């Protein structure tokens, strides 16, 4: 299954719970908003983040770098969900207009939705979450060169899309 992140020699102990609580406390808001920007869907963002944290809790000490692991798992889970959703007609999601979101954020998310998933992920992780391209590459499991290519394309496309709206 493409949404499961495999960690070698994982143990089912909750020893990393403190570290995960800290990741949630310090990174939770940034991660959730990044996932929202990536998926365009509050529900999917919450589900991916919760699933990633729950998986990390289950892996315990096997997770050596909780922050990077959770970001990586959450984006992979969200990517899997996006692929699943694109194959189905979904009624419930059509009623999922967010109750509240600033209009500029809605505009940004609409613009992001017109990028490819990889361009979108790279743009969100670098331009919003502030990860260096090396770390973006690690989170997404792609090469740094590929990150730079996607980033360049994403920047160009976003400027065009957002300028259109400004105009």
């Amino acid at each position, binding site marked *: 299954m493409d949404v499961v992140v495999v960690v070698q020699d994982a143990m089912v102990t909750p020893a990393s719970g403190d570290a995960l609580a800290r990741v949630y406390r310090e990174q939770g808001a940034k991660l*959730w908003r990044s996932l929202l920007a990536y998926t365009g869907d509050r*529900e999917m963002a919450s589900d991916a983040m919760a699933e990633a944290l729950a998986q990390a*809790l289950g892996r315990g000490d096997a997770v050596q770098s909780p922050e990077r692991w959770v970001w990586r798992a959450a984006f992979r889970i969200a990517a899997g969900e996006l692929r699943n959703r694109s194959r189905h007609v979904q*009624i419930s999601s059509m009623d*999922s207009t967010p*109750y509240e979101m600033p209009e500029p954020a809605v505009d940004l998310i609409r613009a992001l939705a017109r990028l490819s998933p990889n361009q979108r992920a790279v743009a969100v992780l670098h331009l919003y979450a502030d990860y260096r391209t090396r770390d973006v590459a690690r989170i997404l499991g792609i090469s740094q060169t590929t990150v730079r290519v996607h980033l360049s394309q994403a920047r160009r496309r976003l400027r065009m899309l957002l300028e259109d709206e400004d105009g």
Partner: protein
Amino acid sequence: MADLRHRFAVLDRVDVPDVWQQVNDLGPRPPSEERPPTATRIAVAIVALLIAAAGIALAVRSLGGSSSPSSSPTPGRTPSPSSPPTPPADAIVFARSASDSLDARIEIAYVPAGGGDVVLMTTEGKQGWVAAEPRWSPDGSRIAFVMSPRSHLTRFAGDGDIYAMNADGTDIRRLTEGLNASTPAWSPDGSQIAFVRNQGRALVIMDADGSNQHVIARDRGYYQWPAWSPNGRLIAYQSSPDKNTEVTAIFIIQPDGTDDRRLTSGSASAGFPAWSPDGSRIAYSSGQLWIMNSDGSNAHHVTNCRLPCVFDFAPAWSPDAGALVFVRQEDGGRARRLYILELATGAVRSLTPEIRWAGSPDWRPEPG
């Protein structure tokens, strides 16, 4: 134009829900698809809960959330002194945004089925709460609904607590605790309420005062919109058939949790079931409105939703079974409006002006 990083900074203004509660619901996940031994699971869950108990208060505070049960409105209090006028006999209650802004508060409102002004019934939104999913009690004297802090919402309806209030908006009482309930539905005798819990993971029944809560089903993917049959023997609901499927269908189940059956088939999602007053038919939504017999036979669509219409949903029957009120999503999904469909003629008339967000209409029953 502004630097792209600056454009992304607007995301910092989006409210973040309390996902840690959802993590607790999931529990620690083992590294493979296999579940660990029960003893390990229990130990892991206990430690995780301890961690959560220690960390959640700080975590929620740091995220700007306010989802602890203690922050809920106090049960038994009354709303603001400026209570709305008593709704008329043909009042249709629904949830709506209080203004045209996308981040407007959501409140319970009513509009007469015969036409007239939309009247807001709650004012909780001013305090940062969202009130939605209103349902008339069978005698038309009370309204059950869901209320939640804005920051808690993660689903289209949003988990919250179930409340009930008098038809005139007074005597609001909280029936559940934990901010994990949604989509209430009264039993036909008014003694019980069915609802879903933990983001649709379980179908639950409780007494109308909130006591005696018990799960009747938890095996499917995402329970939503229970609706009690008029004779009280069945509950229709919307769910995906299993946890790995996203397409939803209409199911029926007995209130004791037995005889769970699927009524709709096919690849298109179906949802929002509503029993006709005599229990012989079920209206539902699958892109447009459909009606089928209560055994699933003779399904046929009764509205035609074409652009700029994108979605007809949330049907509710008139007490005389002659009409359906429903929500139509228009303008590419940017606006909604309540409509009434006269079943004899197929005529559709708009009941409200364009509203940024509207949902869950329910027609006031005739007093028994």
